[in-house]
């Protein structure tokens, strides 16, 4: 059976999601931030994490965005292959949702239309959209507005197969060390290993949308996530980069097959305002 779906439905959902995600962290992130405050050993670090708790409360209660950088809208659309869309083009429907959400939600318009001439599009469009086709007749929308303080500190490393696991670990630590205070720690570190140049970057981005309390279901990847979180927290960068024991809240890693000649690794760094929201329609 083919399900007919008006693309207006995408617009409505995405509009609401833009507003919700910028004022309130997801449950997994809220818990992680609370735990970080409880566990931080540095006095100054603890004070900063306490203020970030206050910030989240004010944002939620008074509808002030958690961070003024309400991000560039990144949208993952997993589309059931038994759906037939009606109405405007899917891409236009998504962008209309972003436009309405950012205008009606008092969110900052942070997108310039051309990377060199840099004129603001004034409605935060276009979104960056990643499509995939899946079985079924539902659409899973994942929205993850990305701030650029941390995006700018993200890296792709084209390692050699001989660099192996040590090379991967070194790449992750290098990216986090270089990011330091610029990426608004405590960070969430999304990592993509394998694929091609662009595939590993998308894997890393998608990893950031996984709840921070959920590990990879591949045993060695789960171990790597745990080990890298310990190592990153051992760097001492701390909240705000001013020293402490909590530099990252989680390391989420996704892997994919790759070529005999390569070992691509992408490290997508996100600040503590790691916004992700999922809806299925």
């Amino acid at each position, binding site marked *: 059976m083919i399900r007919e779906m008006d693309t207006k439905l995408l617009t409505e959902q995405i509009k609401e999601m833009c507003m919700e995600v910028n004022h309130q962290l997801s449950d997994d992130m809220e818990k992680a931030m609370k735990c970080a405050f409880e566990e931080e050993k540095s006095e100054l670090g603890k004070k900063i994490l306490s203020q970030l708790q206050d910030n989240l409360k004010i944002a939620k209660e008074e509808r002030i965005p958690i961070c003024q950088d309400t991000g560039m809208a990144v949208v993952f659309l997993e589309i059931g292959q038994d759906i037939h869309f009606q109405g405007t083009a899917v891409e236009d429907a998504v962008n209309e949702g972003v436009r309405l959400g950012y205008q009606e939600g008092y969110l*900052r318009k942070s997108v310039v239309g051309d990377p060199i001439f840099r004129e603001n599009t004034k409605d935060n469009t276009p979104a960056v959209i990643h499509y995939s086709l899946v079985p079924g007749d539902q659409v899973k929308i994942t929205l993850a507005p990305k701030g650029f303080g941390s995006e700018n500190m993200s890296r792709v490393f084209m390692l050699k197969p001989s660099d192996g696991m040590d090379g991967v670990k070194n790449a992750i630590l290098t990216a986090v060390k270089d990011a330091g205070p610029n990426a*608004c720690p405590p960070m969430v570190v999304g990592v993509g290993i394998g694929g091609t140049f662009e595939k590993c970057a998308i894997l890393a981005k998608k990893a950031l949308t996984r709840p921070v309390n959920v590990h990879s279901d591949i045993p060695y990847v789960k171990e790597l996530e745990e080990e890298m979180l310990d190592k990153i927290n051992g760097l001492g960068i701390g909240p705000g980069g001013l020293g402490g024991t909590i530099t990252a809240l989680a390391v989420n890693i996704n892997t994919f097959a790759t070529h005999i000649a390569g070992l691509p690794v992408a490290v997508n760094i996100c600040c503590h305002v790691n916004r992700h929201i999922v809806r299925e329609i």
Partner: protein
Amino acid sequence: MDQFINTPITEKIASGLKAGDSVFITGTIYVARDAAHKRMTEALERGEELPIDIKDSTIYYMGPSPAREGRPIGSAGPTTSSRMDKYAPVLLDLGEKAMIGKGKRSKEVIDAMIRNHAVYFAAIGGAGALLSKCITSSEVVCYEDLGAEAIRKITVENFPVIVVIDSEGTNLYETAGKFSS
């Protein structure tokens, strides 16, 4: 230590602040980020006057979200300062005394700070809702077409910052970043 200061932040005030101090600023400060800094630099290159009174000024690297009705400003936390590194030394040489942002600064900026007895503060990155509560008024001064990147003049009350690099060049990121329990 905690210090409560009023703007304008003069050379005397800036010199009395040490890396690691918690400072609460009250008074008037300017807000500008990348695009505004670029325009100011271009104006200077053309031999024009700056659109702001740069002497003893404090510039907050920030681009707010839009204000809801009845509020002076939206979310208002710091942006990454290193993007202003290219432009900051010239402004420091013209009299800018304090910068508020987040993250590392270049050697050129630190040299210009020492030369001019200026101070660099960090505000808490990602705490834009909390910080907005310390801002009591906001007006666009110029470059309105830049939207969130326009230059603003804002009034702050006990705005909380930390001295990261002081007027002698001592850098808290280099010392505090080595924390171990």
